[in-house]
């Protein structure tokens, strides 16, 4: 009961703290919107091969571009309050609909990459920490540092050369085979085969990151008294490493995994463009190429809000897992 009260109090505090961040994000987006040279109507006009002044003015009032700064901010906030991010002039579809259509594909990519990175990274970090200073640690540390310094998209391209071009094992474009009517297991296998390279590409940097974090965190925990006690009790080194050191070392690692969500959203832009994966990242680049700023800022805004939601839920998860965290 007391515990549930504690978590409720945490929830109230975390949500309350998120309010200024959300407002700041809205303000930042509005400012960026104001910085755009020309406007979407100019682009529309040039694409449709010219339009009369009257049509331009009509379009401007349709998109709300003829108001002053404060009116525009208020109109902007008012629209957002109704979950209205405006139309994408390029696709002539509401921005929020475009984003929501693409979001699941990106989430699949990100969650798989994050899971892979956590599993492989923590395993590598645990091996490194338990062999600290000896050759397995040195070899792995070097490999991890190399991976940490390599652009993910370059590894992706090299993987395409090896697995798609030379060996012909995996597809390098899209999220499913087009023109085939697949069902059940075949459909799933097809999706998985398409996802392998993009997920690997997105995960590489984070594998290295979690390996480094886990190693550092475990070395920190290894110095503590309860580990010496566990060893003195005569427990096997493997048992001490896994049950005593690793478990305690994981808390800071998982805290950071929530923060990396934002970075992964950015990384998805490059990965999706590289592999023709129909997600938010590809949509971002389409928006850039067609100068569809309304869509571009809509993506930035909704991605930022997604990060806020993830951060709040990670905080609550931490509070639930670790009773020492108090809402003071």
């Amino acid at each position: 009961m007391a515990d549930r009260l504690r978590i409720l109090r945490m929830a109230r505090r975390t949500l309350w703290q998120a309010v200024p961040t959300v407002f700041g994000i809205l303000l930042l987006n509005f400012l960026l919107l104001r910085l755009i040279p020309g406007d979407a109507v100019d682009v529309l006009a040039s694409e449709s091969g010219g339009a009369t002044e009257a049509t331009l003015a009509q379009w401007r009032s349709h998109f709300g571009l003829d108001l002053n700064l404060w009116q525009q901010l208020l109109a902007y906030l008012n629209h957002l309050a109704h979950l209205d991010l405006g139309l994408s002039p390029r696709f002539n579809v509401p921005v929020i609909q475009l984003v929501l259509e693409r979001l699941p594909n990106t989430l699949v990519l990100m969650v798989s990459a994050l899971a892979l990175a956590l599993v492989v990274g923590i395993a590598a970090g645990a091996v490194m920490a338990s062999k600290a200073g000896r050759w397995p640690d040195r070899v792995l540390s070097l490999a991890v540092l190399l991976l940490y310094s390599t652009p993910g998209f370059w590894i992706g391209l090299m993987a395409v050369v090896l697995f798609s071009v030379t060996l012909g094992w995996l597809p390098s474009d899209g999220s499913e085979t087009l023109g085939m009517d697949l069902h059940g297991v075949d459909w799933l296998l097809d999706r998985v085969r398409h996802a392998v390279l993009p997920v690997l590409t997105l995960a590489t940097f984070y594998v290295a990151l979690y390996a480094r974090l886990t190693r550092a965190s475990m070395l920190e925990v290894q110095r503590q008294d309860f580990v010496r006690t566990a060893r003195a009790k005569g427990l096997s080194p493997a048992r001490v490493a896994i049950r005593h050191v690793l478990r305690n070392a994981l808390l800071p690692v998982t805290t950071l995994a929530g923060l990396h969500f934002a970075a992964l959203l950015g990384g998805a832009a490059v990965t999706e463009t590289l592999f023709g994966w129909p997600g938010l990242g590809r949509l971002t680049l389409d928006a850039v190429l067609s100068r569809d700023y309304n869509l571009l800022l809509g993506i930035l805004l909704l991605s930022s809000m997604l990060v806020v939601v993830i951060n709040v839920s990670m905080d609550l998860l931490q509070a639930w897992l670790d009773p020492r965290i108090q809402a003071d």
Partner: protein
Amino acid sequence: MSTTAIESIRSGHSEGLWAALRRSPAALTGSAILVLTLAMAASAGYFFPGDPSEMVAEPMLWPGSDPAYPLGTDSLGRNVAAGIAYGARASLLIALYGTLISVVIGVLVGALAGYHGARLGDVLMRITEVFQTVPSFLLVIVIVAIGNPTVHVIALAIGVSSWPTIARLIRAEFRTLREADFVTAARSQGFSHRAIIVHEILPNALAPLVVTASILVASAILIEAGLAFLGMSDPNTPSWGGMIGSGREQIASAWFLTALPGLAIISVVLAFNMLGDGLNDALNPRLRRYIP
């Protein structure tokens, strides 16, 4: 504490940075690679006179097939070796410039937030949190798309999206140091807030700042490469990421066009990471570093 005592603390710290550099093989190796890369960037015009984006030979020469073009030529007959040498200029310039902008913003915000605390500090940390929440690579893309893909805009975009790391670090340092004896001494001597911030506290926060900045340069190079790969770089300046992006079209027939500029990126990013890691370990093995 007298002014001379304060002086000795200050000089002690800057010596520490050099001593740390000499002590750490990793930091030394990283610096050596960086010196070589800088030499390559500086001498590009001497070894490869003429415009690196001009066609000089038959297209798609493989590396080693013509001694005049040791790294081959791309689909437009441009010299790959020249592109890599000139590309070093673009990568280093944008990364260092962008990092400088983020250090300036970060130090300013972090110092004010850490020194003054309370109200102003809270507001500044809220702003920092906003910039930490917004996915930084998306923010970079938006800023570059709104402006133009010039060196200034790209550097500004990188700076604007990566300063929170510096601000948090500097704030933490300032919060610890503002209670230190030598700061109390300076305050009792009637030094102004600005003098205390600039001359007393900041020099003592220099070591962690240098470590974090070198890691930031590494990530700035990766950001620049990603942008150029997406085609968002100055089309008239050769850059490593741009070379990978255009080489991608020929990936099935000439994979060296993507592989070589990638190796250049890796070696420079690795060098900055080794420098940062090496200094970090040598200065203080238990220093908490914020990893973005």
